[in-house]
C-alpha cells in the first residue's frame, strides 16, 4: 500500500520553510536589538573598535561560521576603526540569552558605546556589511 500524501506534505512545507529561511539568511536587520543591553569592553574582554565592532557568535556544529569569520576578519584589516570580535556561543550562554541569539553564526553590529545597531543571522554579504558599517558613526 503506497501513500504519497505524507511525502507531498513534507516536501511542500520544507520548500516553503527553505525559501523563507534563504530569504532572511545573512540579512542585516536593525530591529532585532534587545533594549537595555550593552556589549561593553568588560563584557567582551576586549577593547571595542573606535567606531564600530562586529561581534560574531559561533558554535562548533556550524559550517558557515568559518566562512563568516574569514570574511569579517579579512574586512576589518582594511578598516582601522572597526573591530571583529569572535565569541564561542556555547561557553557564553548568558550572553546568548541576554541578546536572544538563536542560531549561529549571528553577528551583532555595535557602535563605539557597545549599543547594538543591527544583527545578521547567517553569513552576510560583503556589500551588506560595508553598508551597515557606513551607517555607524
Amino acid at each position, binding site marked *: 500500500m503506497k501513500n504519497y500524501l505524507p511525502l507531498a506534505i513534507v516536501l511542500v512545507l520544507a520548500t516553503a520553510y*527553505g525559501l523563507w*529561511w534563504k530569504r532572511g539568511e545573512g540579512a542585516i536587520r536593525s530591529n532585532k536589538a534587545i533594549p537595555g543591553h550593552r556589549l561593553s569592553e568588560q563584557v567582551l*574582554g576586549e577593547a571595542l573598535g573606535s567606531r564600530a565592532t562586529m561581534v560574531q557568535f559561533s558554535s562548533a556544529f556550524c559550517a558557515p561560521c568559518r566562512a563568516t569569520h574569514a570574511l569579517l576578519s579579512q574586512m576589518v584589516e582594511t578598516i582601522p576603526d572597526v573591530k571583529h570580535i*569572535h565569541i564561542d556561543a556555547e561557553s*557564553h550562554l548568558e550572553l546568548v540569552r541576554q541578546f536572544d541569539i538563536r542560531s549561529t553564526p549571528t553577528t551583532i553590529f555595535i557602535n563605539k558605546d557597545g549599543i547594538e545597531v543591527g544583527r545578521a543571522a547567517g553569513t552576510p554579504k560583503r556589500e551588506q556589511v560595508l553598508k551597515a558599517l557606513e551607517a555607524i558613526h
Partner: protein
Amino acid sequence: MSEILNKPEVAKIYIDARGPRFAASITTLVLAIALVTQSAWVLALQGLVFLIGAVRGPQFTPYGLIFKSLIKPRLKKEAPTEDVRPPKFAQAVGFLFALVGLIGAIAGSSAVFTVAVGFALAAAFLNAAFNFCLGCEMYLLGLRFATK
C-alpha cells in the same frame, strides 16, 4: 574571548563540503521511499547509515564512499572544505529520528513512524536543496533549552 575555531582540543578534520550535500540528496530519496512504502526496513538501513555518519564521520558512510569514488573524480572545480563536525551533528540528529521511527514501527504505530521519518526527510531535503545547516539553526536553541 575564546576562539572556538582555533581551539587546540577541537580536532580539525576537514572534508570536501560537497560530500555531505550529495549524501543528503541520497538520504532524501531513501527517506522518501521509506515514507511512501511505510517500510521499516528501508528506515533501518538509513538509520545504520546515520549511525556510521554520526560515530565515524559522514565520509565513511556508503553515501560518502560513493561520493568519493564516483562523484568527486568527475568534479573539476577545486574542492571547498568543511569542518567534519557540523555534518556529524546532523547525522546524529538523523539517527535519533530514525530510532524514534523504528520504535514506532515496532510498537505498531504508523503515526509515530510517519512523523519521525517526515522530520528526518524535511531536514535532509533542506540540506540538499537549500544548503540548510541543521547544527547552525538548532544546536544553540537546543542548548539554551537544555540548560535553562
